[in-house]
């Protein structure tokens, strides 16, 4: 008689399914235990390289070099220990560069997984006096021609032992007297060296030195400056940011030619070492904002930074709030005015979008065109954008509540025509509305994803099938098509892409409230949303400033844009160090007189 447990197992195996054994690939489960330490003494996980200084291979190569004068080579452990060699050495990324070319080559080969990783090039060569040297770089990331001419060529013709003075560090000498490269930097730690290599710099090492020279000849492929895709304007600059951080900085610099425009670069991301730059105008920005932005950025410890979106989510005040709390823009001429107002700009390598912060709700409705257009054009356009926002948020909800709860508010003629058109439609209004709204969202999403060649089909599908055919087939009523169309137009008129998203989400929220409670529900929704907005802050600035709470200098650039000569103050809610933008009389000619003979 078997034990009860075994019998249970037996029963279980009878009733459970066992997949037949095949030869297919199986992804083995990974166990957290088990060392990654290889036999060569390299710990891949910690990038630790452990070796005995008496390691045979190391010496053999030094002997071959013939000029190694560091230590006599003996296999006698005791004597070597006395001389400071022969003990076990431990190199990690944070240790100083070891003064031996072979060890370094070995270490870099291990670090960069050579020869498995074929992208890394370690080029060994000798100076004229026979001193060993190597450069290490990533294939495709550098301008090879320049490296050849300005680094390898002068070095190979150099008799370093002869020309370098005794008291001088040899790398310093090379840097100062030999290389014709313009952007160089001496590094003394492996960590810095590796960082620079993966960033596309070329690292030079000369035997027996304890430093490396980073030469910046970045030459990887990047997109040229093109027109912005998401933010189009008619009057204004047509430049858009690119994916490259340095290019982006150089797009802003020419707009604000000021020595106090400060750029600080941080490296974030444990694995990918993403670069994040913050940019602000010292003397205008409130230092508290800069400190806070820096504090938030520096505290970030994540695996992978691949663009501004990640950083936005990591540093924004309130992740669960629908409204954008930093302003994302693709345009240098939209970024520069923000810097001038005392905002901080965060640029992330890898996306053509930069973030400005803090942000207020109304400023999201501005475009770079506003400052280029005359004030009443801009004001009108802003009002239209605001109207578009409210349309996008409220219209379907209002329609549902009117049709389901408040028939008395619709003019009788229109009501009868709605009723007549609804005859034969089997769904309640709310189903109709949701159906059309979801289809509209589908069109929007499909429009972004659709491959360019079959793009025009989308218009036909959207207009004909969803619009006309749905009405003819009595699935939705024609007035609903108008409602959805107006909603769509409203949401596209919002200048800020992120705000467009939040409007689309809130719209569904309002449709739900309207379907449950009619106008009362919409009123409740407005109360909820507006109280959330009032309580929101973006980097310490109230979201609805300058109107709620009312702050000073409200009038200069609120919903109504004042003419350029009236915008005397920077927004007070930013608490800028320099409040005045321009003197009260910024048009000097108003006070002056035309020259004699040209007067009336």
């Amino acid at each position: 008689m078997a034990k009860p447990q075994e019998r249970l197992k037996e029963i279980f195996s009878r009733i459970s399914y066992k997949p037949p054994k095949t030869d297919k690939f199986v992804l083995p489960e990974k166990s957290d235990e088990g060392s990654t330490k290889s036999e060569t003494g390299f710990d891949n996980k910690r990038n630790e390289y452990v070796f005995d200084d008496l390691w045979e291979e190391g010496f053999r190569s030094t002997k071959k070099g013939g000029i190694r004068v560091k230590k006599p080579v003996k296999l006698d452990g005791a004597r070597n220990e006395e001389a400071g060699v022969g003990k076990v050495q431990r190199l990690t990324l944070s240790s100083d560069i070891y003064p031996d070319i072979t060890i370094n080559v070995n270490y870099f080969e291990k670090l960069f997984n050579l020869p498995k990783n074929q992208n890394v090039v370690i080029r060994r060569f000798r100076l004229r006096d026979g001193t060993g040297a190597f450069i290490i770089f990533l294939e495709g990331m550098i301008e090879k021609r320049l490296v050849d001419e300005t680094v390898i060529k002068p070095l190979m013709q150099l008799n370093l032992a002869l020309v370098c003075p005794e008291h001088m560090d040899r790398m310093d000498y090379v840097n100062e007297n030999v290389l014709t490269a313009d952007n160089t930097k001496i590094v003394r730690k492996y960590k810095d060296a590796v960082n620079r290599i993966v960033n596309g710099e070329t690292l030079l090492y000369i035997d027996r030195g304890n430093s490396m020279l980073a030469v910046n000849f970045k030459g990887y492929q990047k997109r040229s400056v093109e027109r912005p895709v998401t933010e189009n304007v008619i009057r204004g600059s047509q430049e858009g940011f690119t994916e490259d951080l340095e290019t982006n900085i150089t797009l802003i610099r020419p707009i604000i030619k000021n020595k106090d425009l400060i750029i600080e670069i941080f490296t974030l991301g444990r694995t990918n070492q993403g670069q994040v730059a913050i940019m602000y105008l010292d003397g205008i920005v409130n230092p508290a904002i800069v400190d806070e932005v820096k504090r938030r950025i520096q505290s970030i410890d994540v695996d992978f930074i691949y663009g501004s979106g990640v950083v936005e989510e990591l540093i924004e005040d309130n992740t669960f709030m629908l409204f954008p709390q930093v302003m994302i823009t693709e345009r240098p001429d939209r970024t520069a005015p923000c810097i001038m107002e005392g905002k901080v700009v965060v640029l992330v390598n890898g996306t053509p979008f930069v973030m400005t912060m803090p942000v207020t709700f109304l400023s999201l409705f501005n475009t770079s065109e506003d400052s280029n257009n005359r004030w009443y054009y801009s004001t009108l356009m802003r009002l239209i954008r605001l109207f578009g926002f409210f349309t996008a948020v409220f219209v379907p909800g209002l329609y549902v509540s009117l049709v389901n709860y408040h028939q008395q508010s619709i003019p009788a003629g229109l009501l009868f025509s709605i009723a007549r058109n609804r005859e034969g439609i089997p769904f309640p209004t709310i189903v109709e509305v949701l159906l059309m709204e979801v289809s509209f969202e589908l069109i929007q999403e499909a429009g972004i994803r659709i491959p360019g060649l079959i793009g025009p089909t989308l218009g036909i599908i959207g207009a004909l099938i969803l619009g006309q055919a749905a009405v003819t087939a009595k699935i939705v009523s024609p007035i609903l098509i108008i409602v959805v169309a107006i909603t769509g137009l409203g949401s596209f008129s919002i200048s800020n892409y992120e705000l467009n998203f939040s409007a689309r989400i809130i719209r569904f929220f309002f449709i739900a409230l309207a379907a449950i409670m009619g106008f009362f529900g919409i009123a409740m929704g407005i109360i909820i949303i507006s109280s959330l907005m009032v309580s929101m802050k973006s980097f310490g600035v109230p979201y609805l400033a300058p109107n709620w709470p009312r702050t000073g200098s409200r009038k200069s650039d609120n919903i109504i844009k004042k003419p350029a000569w009236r915008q005397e103050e920077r927004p007070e809610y930013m608490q800028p160090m320099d409040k005045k933008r321009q003197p009260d009389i910024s048009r000097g000619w108003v006070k002056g007189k035309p020259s004699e003979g040209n007067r009336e």
Partner: protein
Amino acid sequence: MLKLLKIFLCIVIILSCAGCFDKKEVDDLAYIVAIGVDKGEVDRLRLTIQYATFKQSGGEGGSIEGESDGTMVVTIDCPSLYTGLDMFSTSTSRRFSMLHTKYFVVSKEMARQGEMDRYINALIRFSEIRRNMFMFVSRGKAGDFISETKPALGDDIIKSIELAMEQPYRTGLIPYVNLGRFNEALKSTTHQPVSALVSTNDFKSLKEARHKPQGQVSGGHHIAGEVPRTGGVKAELLGMAVFDGGKMVDELNGDETRLYMMITGAFRRGFFTIRDPEKPDDIVVLDVRYKRKPTIRVDISGDKPRIEVQVRLEGNIVSTQSKINYESDGLQPILERAFERQTKRQMDSLITKTQQTFKADIFNFGKYVARKFPTVQQWEKYNWLDRYPQAVINTKVDFTIRRSGMMLETAPTQQTEEISE
């Protein structure tokens, strides 16, 4: 934030339990356009309603009796309005809704019974009834008026009713009275209710010449149902019904209605025909409007309240038949005084009529008298509605001619001597 989300979810769940119960789709309802009440034969009331059928008029509809122009007219004998609607439902699939009822018409027979207040109270109490629906008294059967109300132009009954309701402002021949105002007047201590008078016209007045003008040239001395005309829609709106509380006491014709409108301040404009002051056989047509709103002054110091009514009008000459140049500065006052005299005479006789025949203050003079009292108690004690017949009311009419139209003066017509003799 998660806490906030939970709170929000709670709110949504609670509200969705409470909400939705009065949700109704547009096409689940039958919208009543007009309600008419007559005295019933089988039961207390004979209820006639007109509701929208959502059918395009001129279509293949019309197979059901009573249907035309996108609406259906049905009649039922029932104990009360609301029961009547339920009884209609036995033959209609949808629930009746009074959200878009445009007018409520009562037959004169019912109104004369003096029980208007009962029905009005019942209407006012119900939430679906809109107090801005028009209030009519029909001289014939209310049901007939509803079924004869058809769009004369276009095919939209709603539009034609809504436009008809603007008539008071265009002609002043009917008063603007909606359910809310009527109810207010019923309960008011300052004035008595009136109502627009409607009827169906059988077109017999034209042939039989029942009401020959005796010294009347105004054209407004008719009353609904008796306008000498033929052709067009049978239903017509003209004149007003005067109530004493819930009881209808008399009818006023179109001219009197205009004067009523002038005194109460609701008059907008109208064409008036008067006799030529120099040649009584000819007529003069004037386009009259307010110069200023009327002023009413009250003095209650004596034992009889004294009321001064001043109506200030202005107008344009539209037509003069006599070829006398009333446009000229010298002759203009003659015309002005003639119009003033006539209007004052008519106004005085109307006021005397209200005081002596109706004993009802329909002009809302009470509103001005009430201002003299510091407290409501004192005012109620004064008992205005009973004192109104004793009041001494003086009227004053002031009329100015502003423009003479597109003619500066009437040029003589050129003709051969033979004809002019």
